[in-house]
């Protein structure tokens, strides 16, 4: 077997790994790789308009298909532009491999043109990273990078390849299954621990399953097993933002999302539970509220694949280090083998239904303006039978989408949860559409966020991707404005979106169809017009400008201190509260 250039080795390794799509942007330090891809013709390359968008598109592709997203960018600015998306993938545990070009090895450290210390910059925002200095190691490194990105708790892995390593030659052969020296994630928990949690569930009077993105990362089977566990235990289920879709929103057992903008019933049930079983969720600060008041009387079990997630924010009584799917499978099996009857949780459900009766997601609807919640519900009404993939940007519209768009299946909800990256939604929609060519993909956006990666309108046009953007346009960075209203006596510092473009004509300039919705009466027809168009559509939906996202647990407050509607709020915050995010 002859020698190949590093660039050819990379392309062949990617093909061996089953990579079909690469999101990237060419530049000097990756020209050999682009040439190798051109000659090979075996990998579809999607040319984005900004490297950040390549990373979010790869995240959207990964989250919607379960396969790792692959990014290819050049050295220096190419790599630094990718850093936001790499960090985003780290916080949301998205499997992604980012290949960056680097200046030739002899120039590293000389402040060469387009040189940046990519491994230094990405060391703490990636799951792992490599600088490959020898083409003979390149093939094995790429295979190892995919292994690390996709196994255990998934995450982004960066492989930095100097240009001379792309040109120099070496032998390559496809490696067998990887047995890493040090990296061996634990997938299955000891049976005794599973028996313990099953016993605790069987004995609990007020249990709740607190589920998160780990279930989605584990694969669709884990979501099926969660349904089964919920059915046999009768326990209510709540979900984090990242977990939406792992349990059907239409189920009577689903309490909705919990946390800062979660439902009253989900948060009260967490607060009053006697047993919390956390599965693939991480007790994030958006979820727990004030820690010393978090679910004070419950025993807590935490099932997570990442040991460092356990006891980080909340002390738990039983830690189970395992993949969510494996743990769920074991729990269901042991529950059934012991022939536990379905526990009598009627009294618990009576209390939950009492909280439900508050209808915490209801919203005032007076006057002519389109309420943003109404727009999201109208979108759901018109599309839910098609199992759409929904992406979002970050802010009020994201929370309204999470609250009012019900998800029945995993991998349909793509949002930047941990990092909260504005500009995520459009490129993520592009990536999701590429991975799911027949799916209906909609980016529910805000007029401020959408402008952060608006250049990607061109990418969708180029590849004939029929993605839809549905902008809830209230002319404000709405979540910033809401916090200013609630905590800074409505001093709206820099939160007004001045000089907005005409989104309809902007879309048209990129070859998209543009639709504006001004009146509530037009909402359904305009959504239908969006769906009827066989191509990309940008909808500028003008919504009530000053609507707030409720319910809300203020920063540093307890679950029981939830604000349900605007008339419960007034005044200013003390410094201790202001210092919280």
């Amino acid at each position: 077997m002859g020698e190949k250039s590093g660039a050819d080795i990379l392309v062949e390794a990617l093909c061996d790994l089953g990579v079909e799509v690469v999101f990237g942007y060419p530049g000097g330090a990756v020209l050999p790789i682009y040439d190798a891809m051109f000659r090979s013709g075996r990998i579809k390359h999607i040319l984005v308009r900004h490297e950040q968008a390549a990373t979010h598109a790869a995240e959207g592709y990964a989250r919607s298909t379960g396969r790792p997203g692959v990014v290819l960018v050049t050295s220096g600015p190419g790599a630094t532009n990718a850093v936001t998306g790499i960090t985003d993938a780290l916080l949301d545990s998205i499997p992604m491999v980012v290949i960056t070009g680097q200046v030739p090895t002899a120039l590293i450290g000389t402040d060469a043109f387009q040189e940046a210390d990519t491994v230094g910059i990405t060391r703490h925002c990636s799951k792992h990273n490599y600088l490959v200095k020898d083409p003979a190691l390149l093939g094995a490194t790429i295979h190892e990078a995919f292994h690390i990105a996709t196994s255990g708790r998934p995450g982004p892995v960066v492989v930095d390849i100097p240009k001379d390593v792309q040109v120099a030659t070496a032998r390559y052969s496809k490696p067998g299954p990887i047995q890493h020296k040090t990296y061996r994630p634990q997938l299955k928990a000891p049976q005794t621990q599973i028996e313990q949690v099953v016993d605790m569930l069987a004995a609990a009077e007020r249990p709740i399953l607190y589920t998160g993105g780990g279930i989605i990362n584990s694969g669709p089977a884990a979501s099926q097993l969660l349904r089964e566990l919920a059915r046999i235990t009768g326990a209510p289920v709540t979900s984090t933002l990242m977990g939406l879709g792992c349990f059907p929103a239409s189920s009577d057992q689903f309490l909705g999302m919990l946390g800062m903008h979660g439902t009253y019933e989900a948060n009260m049930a967490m607060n009053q539970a006697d047993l919390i079983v956390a599965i693939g969720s991480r007790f994030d600060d958006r979820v727990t509220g004030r820690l010393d008041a978090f679910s004070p009387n419950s025993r807590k079990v935490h099932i997570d694949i990442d040991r460092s997630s356990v006891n980080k924010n909340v002390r738990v009584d039983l830690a189970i280090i395992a993949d969510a799917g494996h743990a769920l499978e074991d729990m269901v099996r042991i529950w059934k083998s012991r022939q536990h009857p379905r526990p009598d949780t009627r009294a618990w459900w009576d209390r939950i239904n009492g909280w439900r009766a508050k209808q915490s997601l209801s919203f005032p609807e007076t006057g002519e303006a389109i309420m943003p919640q109404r727009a999201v519900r109208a979108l759901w009404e018109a599309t839910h039978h098609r199992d759409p993939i929904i992406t979002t940007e970050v802010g009020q519209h994201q929370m309204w989408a999470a609250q009012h768009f019900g998800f029945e299946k995993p991998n349909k909800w793509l949002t930047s949860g941990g990092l909260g990256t504005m500009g995520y939604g459009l490129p993520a929609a592009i990536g999701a559409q590429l991975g799911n060519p027949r799916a209906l993909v909609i980016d529910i956006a805000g007029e401020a966020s959408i402008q952060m990666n608006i250049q990607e309108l061109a990418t969708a046009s180029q590849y004939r991707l029929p993605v839809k953007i549905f902008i809830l346009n209230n002319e404000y960075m709405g979540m910033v404005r809401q916090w200013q209203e609630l905590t800074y006596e409505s001093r709206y510092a820099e939160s007004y979106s001045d000089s907005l473009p005409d989104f309809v004509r902007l879309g048209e300039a990129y070859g998209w169809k543009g639709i504006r919705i001004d009146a509530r009466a037009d909402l359904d027809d305009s959504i239908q017009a969006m769906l009827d168009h066989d191509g990309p559509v940008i909808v500028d939906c003008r919504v009530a400008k000053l609507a707030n996202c409720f319910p809300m647990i203020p920063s540093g407050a307890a679950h029981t201190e939830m604000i349900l509607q605007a008339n419960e709020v007034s005044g200013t915050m003390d410094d201790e509260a202001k210092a919280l995010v």
Partner: protein
Amino acid sequence: MRQAATRVEVPLHHSLRDRSPSPFPGGMTLHIKTEAAERHTLAVIVDNEPGILARIAGLFTARGYNIESLTVSEITADKSVSRITIVTSASPATMEQIIAQLDRLVPVHKVTDLTAQGAHVERELALIKVAGSGDHRIEALRLADVYRARVVDATTTSFVFEVTGSIEKIDKFVELMAEVGLIEVARTGIVAIARGREAA
């Protein structure tokens, strides 16, 4: 001020209640909390790959942990594995996090909390340069003898002492040398190993 709060069934969080304006510009004093810390010595066995030290040191700064001492050296004949000894101070909960965070780094083989595990030996080596004449010179030699420090370099006006021991012993020796013409100090940081026959 906007419309006054109407209570629902639960009291609102203190942060959103009406408050009289703070008498000081910028509001009330914000206290930044710190936790009671205890000192632990960790042995971290790692693959000896480029950037591993930056990865570990960076983890400590990124997550706000303290490093009091850090030493690193290859420990196998083929130079493929290194042992990093870290002395850190943290609350028990944070210490558990530090260990878990170190353990999930890809090139880390094993993390052992020597302090939690029980009896272990800790040693540090220091080179200490002292200059002077007359009584100071004699006193420096006399103290060095007490502390079992060796003279590894001497001129007619200076000595370099080599001393090993616990942090406290070396601290004390350096403190004494300050009175007899201390010029400079070089210290290795702590290395540590568990007592008994078992490996960490």
